[in-house]
């Protein structure tokens, strides 16, 4: 098992599937956000295991860049959640539909 890359890929794919299911099955917007974080992490696992396989350090740098992007995403997403919760008093992602056409008024 140490001699193969496959267990790491299987672990990463299981975690990616869990994150994807969290995005499509949950309505709580915090859990949607954390599922996206989990998907980014599983992609990191694939990058780093391929880097170990080829004995190259470039995928580790890519994984580091992905972590930095996740930090930027965390700042924007959490402030967005705060604004939406302040306005709607709910965490349900179905009610965030202010861009829908039904609220357009023709003058």
């Amino acid at each position, binding site marked *: *098992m*140490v*001699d*193969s*890359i*496959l*267990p*790491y*890929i299987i672990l990463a*794919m*299981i*975690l990616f*599937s*869990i994150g*994807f*299911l*969290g995005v*499509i*099955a*949950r*309505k*709580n917007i*915090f*859990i949607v*956000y*954390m599922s996206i*974080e*989990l998907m980014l*992490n599983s992609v*990191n*696992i694939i990058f780093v*295991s391929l*880097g*170990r*396989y080829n*004995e190259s*350090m*470039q995928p*580790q*740098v890519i*994984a*580091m*860049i992905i*972590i*930095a992007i*996740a*930090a*930027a*995403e*965390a*700042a*924007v997403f*959490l*402030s967005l959640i*705060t*604004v939406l*919760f302040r306005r709607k*008093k709910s*965490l*349900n992602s179905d009610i965030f539909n202010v861009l829908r056409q039904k609220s357009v008024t023709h003058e």
Partner: protein
Amino acid sequence: MIDIIFIILSFFAIIGGLGMILFAQPIYSALSLIVCLVALGGVFALLSAPFLFMVQIILYAGAIITLVLFIIMFLNVKSDNLPNEPYKIPTILVGGILLVPFNLLIIKGFSTLEDKPMHIIGEGFGSIKGFGMELFRNWLVPFELISILLLVALVGAVVYLRKEKSDG
């Protein structure tokens, strides 16, 4: 030995991920995501990336998810603010079955790679020095772009969180 550690770490990672999408309260989800991320940090250490292991523990579990926990506590979420999710478990089960062919395709693609020893390399592979050399020699432009991205995210977060006008 590495096999046993890997199995234990992946067990905790999968349990943490499943707990994250199954708990109803977001605070329990964030705590189980911390378990999952720390276990994934251990997997990074097994893949001879000690610097990424450190970054994962300090930055991901220590900073980002702690920020999420702070926001959850700061918002003071009551149980009637939470969405009503009657179809959570059936959607997860059906979606899990539907995702099986996709996963099998990816794993079949990766199984054509021939086996190589994957033991932990010492001698500076993944250490801070080698990592910094790699980053500042070959990845300097992405590094600078990341700094601009973080600045834009900072300004964006401040703009979102400004005090709104009275009609807001």
